């Protein structure tokens, strides 16, 4: 046995989950992010309100839950052979070398998404710090709130021009970013149980408490503007929940619902397959997968659906309650908090602290699969893998920071990697699980050691329903979004260069697989099979 494999084995033995609740909260923490509180309510309100929940829950049942189960099962299976990264696991479970290289997508996604997500995470902490220290003052003239809020956003993000963030030097926003980066790397370096699991075990309940506090404040807003009696909390809830069933006949509504489920649950991201690989074969995957999903849905529908849109509607009316993730979260809500008066400062601090916790539990989950991949592909220790990871991540973060004008680099990475490739990875995992490993065998494998059972008839869902639904959604998504982004590539060289950066990163990862190829072909892994058969 080679020395590198010994290192790999030692690393594999060192890593592992401390408790069942820990792994559930870590997966849920990965899934719960800004999208739960900001993207979901915007999508629902714009796509039929309460009626949106029909395609949303249908997508959850035939897309989110099945792909999640497939990913949990593949991960645990790969882990039983001593593998923890998507390339090694997909290659091993499928028995086909090509899947090792295709599995690189499962490492590329978290790595590239991290490069811009960590910036968004730092915006959340920056806003929280500003509220806590009293630095978030939008003035006394309500007519100027929106403009002042936009100025804060421009400063925090550098959206006004390329290189602006670097020109700020060691101002608060950049110090916050450094703190966030160091915190991420440190927690990742500490490992699964002592770092990620421990952090999520505390962060998730704190996040829930923050959400409850903000929710109570929003639901008790009443009618704050006597001049606008129509702007009350019930009308705000109505704006979010009143159903428009005619929208169900619009394909875009189904596309939006399926997309929301897909991106919200972190399936096809390369994270769950990695996290599940640290389970023992006698550990549950079916109920664990459902519980992590249920936690995500609780935050998304139970909190996200009740807070953002109603709060914006009450103070700004229908026109203020629309907008994308960043618009609602970083422009609109600070205006809402300003309207709340002195108390708004503390609501703002709680809100953005909550968003920061949602973001950091997600960003940590992006570092872990890459660390595991570097460890087992290069045959190095976790410490050295973390160093390599930092070397890969920092230039990418600097790229996104520099090309901040109109958030071009961020948007390009988000579309091509954080959106398009997730569909590809989700499809790959479904194909390996349902068609190569076999749906019946896959269900049997998933049910082994699990406290809940996937019924046998579900093989039809794995084999036909989910792949076909995913295909329809993916084609619809391409028709709807690809032309605009292809045009952006042609018109904006920064977008094209950013895609070049992604290609370079992908090449490095492919090289790592190539380097490990021979070892993975002959090595049977650590074969934690004592409880496998």
């Amino acid at each position, binding site marked *: 046995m080679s020395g590198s494999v010994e290192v790999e084995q030692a690393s594999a033995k060192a890593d592992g989950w401390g408790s069942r609740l820990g792994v559930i909260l870590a997966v849920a923490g990965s899934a719960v992010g800004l999208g739960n509180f900001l993207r979901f309510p915007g999508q629902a309100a714009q796509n039929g309100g309460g009626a949106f929940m029909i395609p949303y829950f249908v997508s959850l049942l035939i897309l989110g839950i099945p792909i999640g189960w497939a990913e949990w099962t593949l991960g645990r299976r790969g882990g039983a052979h001593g593998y923890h990264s998507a390339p090694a696991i997909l290659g091993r479970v499928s028995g086909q070398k090509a899947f090792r290289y295709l599995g690189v997508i499962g490492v590329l996604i978290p790595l590239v998404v991290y490069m811009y997500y960590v910036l968004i995470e730092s915006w959340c902490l920056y806003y929280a710090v500003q509220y806590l220290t009293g630095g978030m003052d939008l003035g006394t003239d309500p007519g100027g709130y929106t403009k002042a809020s936009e100025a804060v956003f421009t400063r925090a993000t550098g959206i006004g021009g390329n290189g602006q963030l670097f020109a700020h030097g060691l101002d608060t926003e950049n110090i916050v970013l450094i703190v966030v980066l160091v915190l991420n790397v440190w927690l990742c370096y500490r490992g699964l149980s002592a770092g990620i699991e421990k952090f999520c075990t505390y962060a998730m309940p704190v996040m829930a408490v923050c959400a409850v506090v903000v929710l109570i404040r929003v639901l008790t807003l009443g009618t704050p503007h006597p001049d606008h009696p129509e702007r009350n909390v019930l009308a705000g809830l109505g704006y979010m929940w*009143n159903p428009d069933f005619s929208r169900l006949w619009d394909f875009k509504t189904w596309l939006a619902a399926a997309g929301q489920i897909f991106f919200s649950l972190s399936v096809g991201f390369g994270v769950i397959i990695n996290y599940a690989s640290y389970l023992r074969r006698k*550990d549950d995957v079916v*109920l664990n997968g459902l519980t992590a999903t249920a936690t995500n849905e*609780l935050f998304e*529908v*139970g909190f996200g659906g009740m807070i953002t849109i109603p709060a914006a509607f009450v103070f700004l009316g229908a026109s203020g309650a629309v907008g994308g993730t960043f618009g609602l979260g970083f422009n609109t809500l600070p205006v809402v908090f300003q309207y709340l008066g002195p108390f708004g400062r503390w609501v703002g601090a709680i809100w953005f602290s909550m968003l920061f916790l949602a973001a950091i539990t997600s960003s940590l989950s992006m570092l872990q699969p890459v660390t595991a991949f570097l460890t087992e592909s290069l045959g190095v220790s976790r410490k050295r893998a973390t160093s390599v990871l930092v070397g890969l991540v920092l230039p990418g973060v600097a790229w996104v920071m520099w090309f901040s004008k109109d958030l071009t680099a961020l948007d390009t990475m988000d579309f091509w990697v954080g959106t398009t490739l997730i569909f590809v990875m989700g499809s790959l995992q479904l194909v390996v699980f349902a068609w190569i490993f076999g749906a019946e065998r896959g269900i049997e494998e998933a049910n082994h050691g699990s406290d809940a059972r996937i019924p046998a008839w579900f093989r039809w869902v794995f084999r036909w329903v989910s792949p076909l639904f995913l295909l329809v959604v993916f084609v619809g998504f391409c028709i709807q979004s690809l032309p605009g982004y292809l045009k952006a590539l042609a018109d904006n060289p920064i977008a094209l260069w950013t895609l070049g950066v992604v290609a370079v990163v992908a090449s490095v990862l492919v090289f790592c697989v190539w380097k490990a190829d021979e070892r993975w072909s002959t090595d049977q892994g650590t074969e934690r099979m004592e409880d496998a058969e």
Partner: protein
Amino acid sequence: MTLGGWVSMVVSLTFVWGFAAWCYAKVLRGPKA
């Protein structure tokens, strides 16, 4: 807020809270919690 709004909100919230409660009750009752 219309009746349809109330119904869709209550049904959705009942589903997500019920789903989460069922899952966590089963996990915490299980031998491997």
